[in-house]
């Protein structure tokens, strides 16, 4: 993922040492990348895409679950968010591994008309069928999923935070949870925060047009999104991650309706820095 990861355990004096749990938690980031990387030809994701289309393939629990969650988001957004956008990303030049500079292979053999509807899952068998040759991209949620899995490893501790490249999951199971201050990056002034949230339990992810240039590409059309920053607060980091990407692609008012229908909170800014937020978000302001 080539992202800095920080795990903070605020351990009470009677709690066991956090070292082993942190080590296992860190292991999930390596594991998610190993399975879900779009750039590693040996990843399970790439091997799936390289398999003959139309054939059922049995997946491991991690990749199957990641795709299942992603398809849920594809469906909820009616395809505005689409994990088969990978080939088009590559055509637009997003085809290099950030870490190694290695160029993504295999994009040319995909069917440009493929969409998420060409993916079929068989739940009991954990099988997947790709009905057309396509390239999957789980980049919008893999980091969030790794954060959630890392958090599972810290279950023995009352209070912790997992922070990876600007996405955060915080947990405080004490009777009187103490919220942490979480800044929302200012989309136009580097180093500044535009809002501060107080959150004791939950995940916060922000999608913007700043960090790697305009890297979010909607499959629908070539229009640039009108939001410049979209923050989602959700119970799980994978959903906060995916829905912040998905809602970023929408007109801000529509994004708020979408997020409220998904029972999560959102805060968006448009080019004029006008603010749009769900009702629940207002309760989180510091």
């Amino acid at each position, binding site marked *: *993922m080539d*992202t*800095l*990861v*920080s795990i*903070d*355990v605020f*351990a009470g004096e009677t709690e066991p040492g*956090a*070292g*082993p749990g*942190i080590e296992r938690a860190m*292991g*999930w980031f*390596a594991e998610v990348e*190993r399975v879900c990387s779009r750039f590693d030809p040996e990843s*399970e994701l790439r*091997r799936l895409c390289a398999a003959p289309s139309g054939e059922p393939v049995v997946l*491991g*629990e*991690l*990749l199957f*679950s*990641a795709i*299942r*969650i992603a*398809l*849920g*988001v594809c*469906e*909820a957004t009616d395809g505005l968010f689409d994990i088969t956008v990978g080939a088009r990303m590559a055509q637009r030049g997003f085809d290099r591994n*950030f*870490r190694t500079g290695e160029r993504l292979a295999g994009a040319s053999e995909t069917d440009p008309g493929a969409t998420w*509807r060409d993916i*079929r899952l*068989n*739940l009991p068998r954990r099988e997947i069928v790709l009905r057309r040759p396509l390239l999957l991209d789980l980049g919008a949620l893999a980091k969030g*999923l790794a954060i*959630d899995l890392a958090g*599972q490893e810290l279950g023995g501790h009352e209070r912790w*935070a997992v922070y990876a*490249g*600007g996405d955060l999951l915080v947990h405080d199971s004490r009777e009187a949870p103490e919220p*942490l*201050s*979480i*800044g*929302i*990056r200012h*989309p136009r002034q*580097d*180093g500044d925060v535009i809002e501060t949230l107080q959150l004791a339990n939950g995940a916060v*992810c922000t999608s*913007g047009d700043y960090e790697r240039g305009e890297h979010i590409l909607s499959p629908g059309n070539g229009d640039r999104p009108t939001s410049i920053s979209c*923050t989602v607060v959700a119970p*799980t980091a*994978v959903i906060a991650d995916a829905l912040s990407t998905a809602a970023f692609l929408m007109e801000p008012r529509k994004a708020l309706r979408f997020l409220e*229908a*998904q*029972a999560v909170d959102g805060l968006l800014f448009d080019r004029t820095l006008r603010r749009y937020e769900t009702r629940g978000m207002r309760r989180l302001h510091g």
Partner: protein
Amino acid sequence: MAKDSWPNGPLFVDEDEQPRRPSWWQRKRPGRMTNGLVALSAAAIVSVYAVGYVNTSAQEGSLAGAPAASIDTAPTTAATPPDSRRVEGVTRPRATPTPTSSSEAPTQQPRQQTTAPTPAPGSSSQSAATFKDGSYVGVGSSRHGQIQATIVISGGKITSASVTGCGTRYPCSKVNLLVNEVLSTQAIPTHYVSGATDSSMAYRGAVQQALSQAHA
């Protein structure tokens, strides 16, 4: 086939090949709120976690044949800074060994940092200060490069936390907000920033490394 009569959505096929709507389908009813996606993700996280990451790949003969032994365990730390009930590992998953890799986990060996100038003799504050007077240097890394921070402790208080080395691809002025936060809170910035740049992570690591030497 029945599945073609249901053009929208991925087909979640039951064992008996009958298509059924996914569990969050009710969300499409107008005006109805549901946390279907959230519930789906929570269940998936638990089931993946239950399998464990050494076993998350499918078994032999399927796509995921890579041996579990190839997992790179990211470097982490088990050391608890003596004056802090906080344990932190800052790392880059699958980090390739580089001369700077040790600074990516600043708390790993907080007592073995030898790059910092020793505190001036006789300058230790006798007050109830948390920190020993002196100046301390720490280095933090990000994928965009390194940041060196110098912490000056005077009278037991942090009086300066400036960036004294900027090896990132972007201007280090980005972290100015965090510098002010260190001065006002007298602590490592705990201010998580959603959507943050990696440079703020690097600065945080640098301050943490420097301050770990300043504890009495």
